[in-house]
């Protein structure tokens, strides 16, 4: 078992046993479901919108070269500096270089999972820069020195009390628990930081190829300040996050808000097209766009799972996933949690090291059912399992399923085997629940079903002796 798999098993087991955590997440997500369904109802047809969104993404991803070139040409024409990063290290080094060249000291960030993916904060801090997260949820988990719990709701696992605690401890704030009062504490601090920052780093929700602009979706206004006040803006974008046109964006913005947050539209949706131009009074002096591959072209090359690049990181699949709802986001130990994470992480970080993620699923298909851009998530989990087994056959499973195969291919052997198992079941009762019990993973929490006195086939045979 890989190290990541061992850590995952330990964490998942611990979180799955935390009933209080389960109920808290359940309650939060039930609230989301109600709002999501309400706003889905505002679409003339959500099903049609999904089909249209999937078709747009299919077109873009299958002609990614063309749309990327168009996008980059248009944004460069307005003075943006575009850097193509083939991996996380290249992206980090470029951003560090920009910070050093411009003698930046204080860096402010708006929410970006792509920067989490490349571990940018750690790199910047190690290099001596001060980094400050300005999204409220991200700010809270940064204070707690934790990674985001969920790709859209980074601090959803915390109670008001826990937030109050960390504010008191790290910010010497007064002991209040009212959400508004807590928000005001963060706001007062953040306003000062925004004025001080000399570099702002953001993610990108959509790149619009026809106009060469990036679209950022948010609810707090912090991304606008992050991108507008400091003299340098660096946007980090996965190469797959493109749409063709403003018309496409008109479809995707409400879909992202509905699927992602149970909102009709998020409070702020802004398009950015580059640095301050001559004659303009505000905006950054420099605008850098880092286009990140970091394994995405490996998914692009896999025709079976290419649609995983349709993902708009709305988090809807996490929200409906019963595994996520039981083990929570931190158990995964990776940037992208939940079903989409279990599909793409093995591509991004290595199948053998992360194959446990696709296996940790009951394959219920709620993810596929909810995905606004029609990614066949549940079936991709099955393909990841198959590919992992093909790369390195697991010895125990190979032996077990060799036996299974023999038993199931020969009806007489099946009958004989089942007869033996029926005879042996009383012996199992003697060791049930002890260390000797091979069925302990089942019997620890569940009663075992008993072999029937007479199988169905025996009943049928007795009833239809000539058959």
């Amino acid at each position, binding site marked *: 078992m890989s190290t990541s798999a061992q850590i995952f*098993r330990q964490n*998942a*087991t611990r979180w*799955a*046993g935390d009933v209080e955590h*389960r109920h808290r997440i*359940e309650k939060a997500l*039930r609230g989301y479901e109600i709002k999501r369904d309400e706003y889905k109802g505002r679409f003339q047809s959500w099903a049609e919108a999904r089909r249209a969104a999937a078709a747009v993404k299919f077109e873009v991803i299958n002609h990614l070269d063309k749309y990327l070139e168009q996008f980059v040409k248009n944004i460069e024409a307005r003075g943006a500096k575009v850097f193509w990063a083939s991996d996380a290290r290249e992206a980090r080094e470029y951003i560090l270089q920009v910070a050093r060249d411009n003698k930046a000291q204080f860096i402010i960030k708006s929410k970006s999972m792509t920067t989490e993916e490349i571990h940018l904060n750690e790199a910047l801090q190690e290099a001596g820069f001060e980094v400050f997260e300005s999204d409220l949820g991200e700010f809270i988990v940064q204070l707690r020195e934790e990674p985001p719990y969920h790709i859209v709701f980074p601090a959803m696992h915390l109670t008001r009390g826990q937030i109050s605690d960390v504010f008191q401890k790290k910010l010497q704030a007064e002991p209040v628990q009212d959400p508004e009062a807590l928000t005001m504490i963060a706001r007062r601090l953040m306003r000062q930081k925004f004025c001080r920052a000399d570099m702002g780093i953001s993610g990108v929700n959509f790149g619009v190829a026809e106009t060469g602009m990036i679209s950022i979706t948010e609810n707090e206004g912090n991304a606008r300040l992050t991108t507008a006040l400091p003299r340098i803006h660096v946007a980090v974008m996965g190469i797959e996050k493109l749409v063709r046109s403003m018309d496409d964006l008109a479809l995707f913005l409400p879909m992202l808000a509905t699927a992602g947050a149970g909102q009709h539209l998020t409070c702020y949706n802004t398009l950015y097209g580059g640095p301050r131009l001559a004659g303009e009074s505000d905006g950054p002096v420099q605008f850098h766009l880092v286009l990140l591959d970091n394994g995405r072209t490996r998914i692009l090359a896999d025709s079976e799972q290419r649609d995983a690049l349709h993902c708009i990181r709305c988090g809807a699949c996490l929200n409906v996933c*019963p*595994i996520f*709802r*039981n*083990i929570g986001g931190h158990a995964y130990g990776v940037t992208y949690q939940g079903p989409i994470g279990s599909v793409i992480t093995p591509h991004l970080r290595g199948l053998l090291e992360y194959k446990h993620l696709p*296996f*940790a*699923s*009951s*394959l*219920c*298909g*709620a993810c*596929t059912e909810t995905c606004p851009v029609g990614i066949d998530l549940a079936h991709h989990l*099955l393909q990841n*399992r*198959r590919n*992992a*087994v*093909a790369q390195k056959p697991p010895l125990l*499973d190979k032996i077990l*399923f*060799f036996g*299974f*195969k023999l*038993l*199931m*291919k020969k*009806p007489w052997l*099946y009958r004989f085997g*089942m007869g033996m*198992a*029926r005879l042996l079941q009383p012996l199992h009762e003697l060791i049930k629940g002890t260390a000797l019990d091979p*069925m302990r*993973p*089942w019997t*620890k*929490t*569940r*009663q*075992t*079903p008993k*072999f*029937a006195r*007479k*199988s*169905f*086939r025996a*009943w*049928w*045979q007795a009833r239809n002796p000539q*058959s």
Partner: protein
Amino acid sequence: MKITLFIPCFIDQFYPEVGVSVVKVLEKLGHEVEYPAGQTCCGQPAFNSGLWAEAREVAAHALDVFEGADVIVTPSGSCGAMMRVFYPKLFEGTPRHQQACRLAAKVYEFSEFLVKKLGVTDIGASFSGRATFHDGCHGLREMGIRDEPRQLLKNVRGLELVELDPPEVCCGFGGTFAVKYPMISSAMGESKCEAVVATGADYLISLDSSCLMHIQGLLEKQGRKVRCLHLAEVLAANL
């Protein structure tokens, strides 16, 4: 109509009364039922474990056993989905692909067969008690079976049907997942049990004995009195 039964391996061995009930219901409706004795398992455990070569060998056996069937009816949404949805994927690019697609088109889950193929929603069943219904995920999302069992249950005399809240959530069984990640599987099952108990139902009905095996196992361990039944058992209760 001549109906060929596929009785999944664990129903054959652990829950034969489910198969017996299916036979009773179909015969009551005047159909001829056959049961090819060579049948074993659909191969899903190997398929879901990523061992597609092994799954293919077991599935190939099923393809041969059911080659001559007109329609295949199985009292399991999970095994039904394996045959209808996953056999064509499993055999893609192999000489048996056509055969797999032919078989896939003939497979029906039991309640789906009654309602969609036979057009029957009331078979004159009676069963007294308060019951709730658990949608097995493969039946629900791979085979698209949602209303069929509810239509059948609504016409059972004496049965009061209460919906689960939340509905349509996985019970956590997931085949080998149940033993590979027993704590996650059990936690999911506990949520399901809480929802079942909250309905005040005496019975939990489903199309899948595999989900029921897991849920019943948890309920018994918790000392709960709720009894799990397959839909076929309810429909055949007075036959």
